């Protein structure tokens, strides 16, 4: 298909063509970046929590009058919860992954790693880390549904009472996540190794890793390199408020959650209720990511809106041009062009315009990404998005021009003989 006549005829509509090319270019740039941002957010929303989420409910107990030694009460609550119909497991914890709150401690795998950390005044040295630390009472691994890939669960005698004000009890064993194991002990199996938290190094009394779980997510997500670094300590939390993890079958969950909440209300008449005091874990997780899901929704709506408006623009303009060039189409048909040739001509002309716009758009996408990287701390756009965006827009353009091109092909040759 000769391109030169097409360009020659487009020259007559320079301004309109330029505007259309510009529009396609801007759309391509914005949609490519939006698609990348959507994929980023979706990855974030999909991080594994490490828990067996279906059937897991979380209840919190805030009381009007704080008990100075509440642990006995809390453990009795857990026993009562276990007695409820439908409850497969229950345990006392101090927090769960993705709950928008976290306790983090600096830990090191040995004395020399600690010295390195001291010298550099940061925990970001080999052999040290700052994981999220969870503490739980007997049955916590089962209640949360953690997936042990090495080692074992805690034994009943390894649980120790925790101290007030969120201080950990003197436990000897810990279970860590696989990501944390790889960070602390990159070249050896983690089970059986020692790790030291803060004061442990002075006393020389560390904690032994007894188990490794596939995933255990942090309470709050910040840097991607810190995701999934967490550990579980068998210290029964004795804080001013308690968190209970209750596991049931998914089909029983609503009923069990209501029954558990009523049980706690009955056992503690001064319990302060709120809409966050009894939730399924799925709800907690959805709440944590609500900003991200909103952003995903908005980005998708904007991208689709842009594509829609651009498609309308291409189709509308093509339709107008077809109307304008009826006479010349008729003449071409009269001198022997077939319907198909007219159709292909218009499709090719459209491809030329949209293709130019898409190529420009790819370049614009890179520029836009640089701008976003500087002002909004977004990552670099991977190269794969550029050809994908360009091709997607070309396909969109072709689809949009199909109806007007068909109408052009339907122009009868007799139009050439008419003078109007």
């Amino acid at each position: 298909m000769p391109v030169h006549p097409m360009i020659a005829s487009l020259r007559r509509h320079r301004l309109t063509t330029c505007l259309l090319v510009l529009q396609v270019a801007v759309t391509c740039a914005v949609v490519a970046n939006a698609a990348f941002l959507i994929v980023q957010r979706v990855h974030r929303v999909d991080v594994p929590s490490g828990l067996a989420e279906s059937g897991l409910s979380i209840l919190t107990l805030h009381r009007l009058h704080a008990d100075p030694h509440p642990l006995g009460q809390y453990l009795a609550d857990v026993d009562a919860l276990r007695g409820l119909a439908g409850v497969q497991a229950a345990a006392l914890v101090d927090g769960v992954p993705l709950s928008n709150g976290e306790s983090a401690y600096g830990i090191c795998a040995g004395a020399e790693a600690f010295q390195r950390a001291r010298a550099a005044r940061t925990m970001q040295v080999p052999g040290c880390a700052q994981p999220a630390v969870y503490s739980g009472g007997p049955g916590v691994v089962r209640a949360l549904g953690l997936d042990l890939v090495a080692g074992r669960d805690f034994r009943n005698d390894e649980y120790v009472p925790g101290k007030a004000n969120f201080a950990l009890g003197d436990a000897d064993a810990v279970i860590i996540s696989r990501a944390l194991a790889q960070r602390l002990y990159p070249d050896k199996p983690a089970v059986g190794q020692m790790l030291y938290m803060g004061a442990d190094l002075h006393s020389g009394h560390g904690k032994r890793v007894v188990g490794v779980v596939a995933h255990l997510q942090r309470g709050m997500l910040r840097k991607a390199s810190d995701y999934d670094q967490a550990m579980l300590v068998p210290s029964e939390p004795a804080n001013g408020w308690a968190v209970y993890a209750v596991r049931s079958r998914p089909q029983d969950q609503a009923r069990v959650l209501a029954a558990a909440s009523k049980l706690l209300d009955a056992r503690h008449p001064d319990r302060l209720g709120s809409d966050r005091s009894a939730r399924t874990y799925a709800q907690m997780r959805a709440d944590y990511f609500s900003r991200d899901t909103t952003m995903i929704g908005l980005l998708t709506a904007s991208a689709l809106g842009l594509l829609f408006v651009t498609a309308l623009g291409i189709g509308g303009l093509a339709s107008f041009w077809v109307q304008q060039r009826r006479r010349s189409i008729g003449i071409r048909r009269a001198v022997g062009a077939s319907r198909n040739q007219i159709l292909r001509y218009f499709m090719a002309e459209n491809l030329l315009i949209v293709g130019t716009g898409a190529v420009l758009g790819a370049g614009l996408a890179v520029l836009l990404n640089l701008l976003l990287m500087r002002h909004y701390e977004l990552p670099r756009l991977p190269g794969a998005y550029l050809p994908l965006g360009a091709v997607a827009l070309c396909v969109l353009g072709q689809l949009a021009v199909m109806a007007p091109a068909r109408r052009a092909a339907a122009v009868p040759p007799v139009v050439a003989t008419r003078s109007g």
Partner: protein
Amino acid sequence: MFRYYMQLAVHSLWRHRTMTGLMVLAIGLGIGASMTMLTVLRVMGADPMPGRSGHLYRPYLDPLPADYKGSGLGPDPSINLTWPDAMALLHADKAAQQAAMAGTSLLVTPARAGMRSREEQGRMTTHGFFDLFGLRFVQGAPWSANDDAQAAQVAVLSQSLARRLYGGADPVGRTVRLGEHDFRVVGVIQDWAPRPMFYVDAAAQRFRGADAFFVPLSAGMALDLDVDGNVSSWGSGSGSDPRHSGNESWLQFWVRLDTPAQADAYRRFLHNYAAEQKAAGRFGRPPSRAHLYSLMGWLAARDIVPGDVRLQTLLALAFFGVCLLNIVALLLAKYLRRSAEISVRRALGARRRDIFAQFCAESALIGATGGLLGLAVAGFGLWSVRQRPDDYAHLARMDLPMLLATLAAAIAASVLAGVLPAWRASHVAPALQLKSL
């Protein structure tokens, strides 16, 4: 002539219904999306103290050691002040009005039986707080400087809390139980909920909630009340009394300075103070880090408008831009198609500017119709923002100025988009067109 142009415009738009529909749709969507985000931006960037915000300032000191490296997991400790720094600023008394403060959350236990206890948000502060922000007392008065010195257990309540606890009776002189202790009520202020809550800690919600009670900071320290906010410590060992130490930051400090000269003087005072502390070995960073923020400057520095919202606004504006490009192209095609009609008018005596005016009127009509659609789209957009769980979401509403601005923006954008096509149309050579008729 305007009525005639409008008639021509309506006639022409009706003839090409689908084309008109496309253009109205494009403008409506673009304007709707942009106005939604601009309303949200306006809510978040609003001035919480109109008339006073120009005189309120927030001192900033950086007490961290020179080689302090944050873990990135927690907030920046230098945002709040340490106790020694706040007390030094307070006692230096370099501002007309000043106050140090921190948030606290206490259980309010009503004296009347049958009423439920509720946890309320409040503030531990110094007596200058009320004058500083111009709060009006409906009953009683603030506590005195002496009360501050004595760590007296006194409290000022908000009007809604007072009403809830005491009904219509005068609560001044009565006792209110906050947390585990009794406080004597000395005053009741008119409800005050600035949006955003500029004086709260960085961790607090800025577009929801309000302080229900105020107690002296010294009493809060004496009774060891829990701080509701970011408490950050650094260095080694704050000893047995971390809150009094210079290694733990948890306080906020605001001052009122009436003239730019006073602001400059205060700035110099802050620099000198920081230099003294560095010489004494307490501060590790250079004294130039000390800064005096204006109220709006402080909100901007604290990223009152989160990056997500800014990105969404940019996206909406880019969308609007593409819609406008769309309109320009479509209008260009449409107007140039009517060269025959234009040439007839020119032949009958219309000047170039009459043609221009006619087409501008047509663009304006498209803009007005698109604006109406845009209002509906913006209404839907703001409704969907209100469903968000963010604390600013409930404030996203369309008010009359925004409504008028939407319509005006739609018409203006449309006319602007139509300028180039109208200009090109008015320059059509009549003779050439007439020949082919």
